[in-house]
């Protein structure tokens, strides 16, 4: 028999489809055809597979080889099918028992000498395989750490084609060192204790981390905006394992495990440069749709420094994910949805030259420039920012002070406690954080004390706040109440929330 079949996985966004790799070897002139909508990288697999096979002392069938990747209508991309194609060809060539490979999934790119190279998106691919009832997967050794996050699946990490063939033929595995993976919340050594002074910004960061409220930091260069933003993940509770798996899946797809360990429980922080394009921010791409910065920041922090310098379309593209917690990207090859539930942290200078603070005497900007600069942020995006904090330059006393500020661990304890209060309150309602309370709830079960409502209605009447602003203020007030162990938000909580939103709506 010169027919063989095995499986691999095609990814479309985070969604994986099992692909049957079928190989038929027929008599005829030597030729090779690859069916099933391959892209350029996949079409080149023939040369890689052939070289790898020959260099691993196997014989290339000099006959008519037909490789079909089904379902045929599904566009397939990337080099991850190399290993599956190679194994299927050898099996069709009767050098591997066809039954041996029927229920296996092979993922990996081949190099010309037969080594197996890592592939992007391994984790989501394995998730799809598991969902389709496949229990054993052969993966590149380099990806082993990531692959072992899959519970209940036998993962065979292989570094070379020869060892795969040896294993398939004899059942013997060269003792592959299994990597002991351990979930860890090890951080990069950042700590809030490093931040001198800045009580307002610290409090805002704590509120943001607790309730999931988006935040804007305005201040002159050197005041510590970036320092504070980078430390926000350190006060967020460690990710739950299910959350961590989601985060790792997205990072696997983007191939960004150089900066982040797949087994990290730390909330990710992604800080794209302000020249970032829209596609890089929300994801996209012509052949394979890749997740953008906002998806990589899923369950973590998306920090955009110098936000007013961003081309406006880039920031506005964040509006959908801010609203929905996911981002749907439509291309001619189909729609892909990535998770994108992140905490948005924006930082901005007070004016283009950055010196419009303190006494402001060295600022060289005209008032129109200053106005336009922060004006770039206004509108629908600013509406979704609940906390707008001015970060003043660090004062003389704060610099001279010897004792350190509060540590991240101390703050995180408060955050975790306040979050659990909120989770308890919202249990069974389908949301868990204060920033997610629906508007109806704010007027119903989750009203602050009457005095606070009167205060807000007064503000509304005097056109100091909008109706949307009123809702946002109550949400932040709930977080303040949780942090202060108030049962429901008091007038003081609401006033504080109002002040932190920046008071008057312009």
């Amino acid at each position: 028999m010169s027919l063989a079949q095995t499986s691999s996985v095609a990814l479309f966004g985070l969604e994986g489809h099992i692909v049957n790799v079928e190989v038929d070897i027929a008599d005829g002139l030597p030729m090779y055809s690859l069916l099933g909508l391959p892209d350029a990288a996949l079409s080149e697999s023939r040369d890689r597979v052939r070289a790898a096979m020959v260099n691993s002392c196997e014989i290339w069938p000099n006959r008519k080889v037909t490789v079909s990747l089904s379902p045929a209508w599904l566009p397939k991309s990337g080099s991850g099918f190399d290993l599956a194609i190679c194994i299927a060809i050898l099996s069709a060539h009767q050098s591997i028992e066809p039954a041996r490979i029927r229920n296996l999934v092979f993922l990996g790119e081949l190099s010309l000498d037969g080594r197996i190279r890592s592939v992007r998106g391994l984790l989501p691919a394995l998730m799809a395989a598991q969902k389709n009832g496949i229990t054993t997967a052969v993966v590149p050794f380099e990806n082993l750490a990531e692959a072992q996050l899959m519970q209940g699946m036998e993962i065979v990490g292989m570094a070379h084609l020869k060892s795969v063939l040896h294993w398939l033929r004899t059942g013997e595995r060269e003792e592959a060192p299994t990597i002991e993976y351990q979930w860890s919340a090890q951080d990069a050594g950042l700590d809030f204790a490093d931040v001198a002074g800045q009580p307002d910004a610290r409090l805002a960061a704590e509120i943001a981390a607790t309730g999931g409220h988006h935040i804007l930091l305005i201040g002159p260069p050197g005041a510590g905006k970036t320092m504070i933003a980078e430390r926000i993940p350190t006060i967020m509770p460690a990710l739950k394992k299910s959350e961590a798996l989601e985060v790792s899946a997205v990072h696997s797809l983007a191939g960004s495990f150089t900066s982040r360990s797949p087994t990290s429980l730390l909330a990710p922080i992604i800080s794209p440069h302000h020249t970032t394009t829209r596609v890089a921010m929300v994801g996209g791409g012509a052949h394979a749709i890749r997740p953008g910065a906002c998806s990589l920041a899923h369950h973590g922090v998306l920090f955009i420094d110098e936000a007013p310098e961003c081309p406006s379309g880039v920031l506005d593209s964040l509006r959908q994910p801010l609203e929905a917690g996911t981002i749907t990207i439509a291309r001619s090859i189909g729609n892909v949805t990535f998770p994108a539930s992140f905490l948005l942290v924006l930082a901005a200078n007070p004016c283009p030259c950055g010196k419009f603070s303190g006494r402001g005497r060295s600022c060289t900007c005209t008032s129109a420039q200053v106005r336009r600069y922060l004006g770039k942020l206004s509108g629908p995006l600013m509406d979704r920012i609940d906390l707008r904090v001015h970060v003043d330059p660090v004062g003389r006393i704060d610099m001279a002070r010897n004792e350190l500020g509060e540590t991240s661990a101390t703050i995180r304890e408060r955050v975790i406690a306040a979050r659990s209060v909120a989770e308890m309150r919202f249990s069974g309602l389908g949301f868990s954080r204060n920033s997610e309370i629906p508007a109806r709830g704010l007027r119903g079960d989750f009203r602050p004390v009457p005095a606070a409502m009167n205060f807000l209605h007064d503000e509304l009447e005097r056109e100091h706040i909008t109706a949307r602003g009123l809702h946002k203020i109550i949400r932040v007030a709930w977080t303040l109440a949780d942090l202060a162990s108030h049962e429901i938000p008091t007038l003081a909580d609401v006033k504080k929330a109002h002040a932190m939103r920046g008071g008057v709506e312009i």
Partner: protein
Amino acid sequence: MNEGEARALLFSAVEGAHPFWSQEIFTHGALTIYEKLLNGGYGDSKCEKLIAKLRSTSPDEVLTSIARADASFIYPGDLLWPSSLEDLVAPPIALIAKGNLPVLSQRSLAIVGTRNPTNYGARIAGDFAAGFVDRAWAVISGGAYGIDSFAHKGALIAEGVTVAVIASGIDINYPAGNNRLFAQICENGAIVSETMPGHPALPARFLTRNRLIAAISQATLVVEAAFRSGSLRTARDAAQLLRPVMAIPGPINSPTSEGCHRLIGERVAEIVTSVADAVEFIGANR
């Protein structure tokens, strides 16, 4: 040719706040000056351009263009003319105004400040405007973004009267983002300009406009101003006219309060911290 027509001609030909002509016209009347000009009384060579301008247009043209902008032409001697303008060193030759013109002679407070206020300034501007409106004062400002807008809006929310003195022609809404505000101001209050319809708001016109804000009102309040701010000009103009000038203090590290602190430090402005304070200070200094 009567006085009004001569005024219209001179108004269209002479840029506002001209140190010589405005004083000359104020003292002798427009008709006298017009005739003296055409008769070479000021020297033909010196006033060549001005005379050419006067000859190139007719009073009718000027007045029609004003009427087309749905505005009125007012000048000294009119019932509607706010006489407080006559204290100026360079009083305006005339004004173009639209809206409810009698309010121009009402007791009024000028509220001025930066285009980039903090929330603190925005709120204070609104609160003081409303507070003075409650005490039957009109609120005068410049119609710009920032403190000006908040002052106008504060007065409107309190259902009071407010006047915008603008630096462009009366038919140009500058800044355009305040279109709606200008329309609301016109409902009960007024908009005033010292340039011909269609003229843009040139930088120099903001400064000459500021002197009108200072002169037309009985007192001036600076809410928030940066170290270099046009509002400081308004305050100094008002001080020169010996009108009460007040400034709102702010945190010493807020760049938008620096100008106010400067005025207070130089004793140009009195520090006020409440509407009641301000009313009392104005009462004592009138």
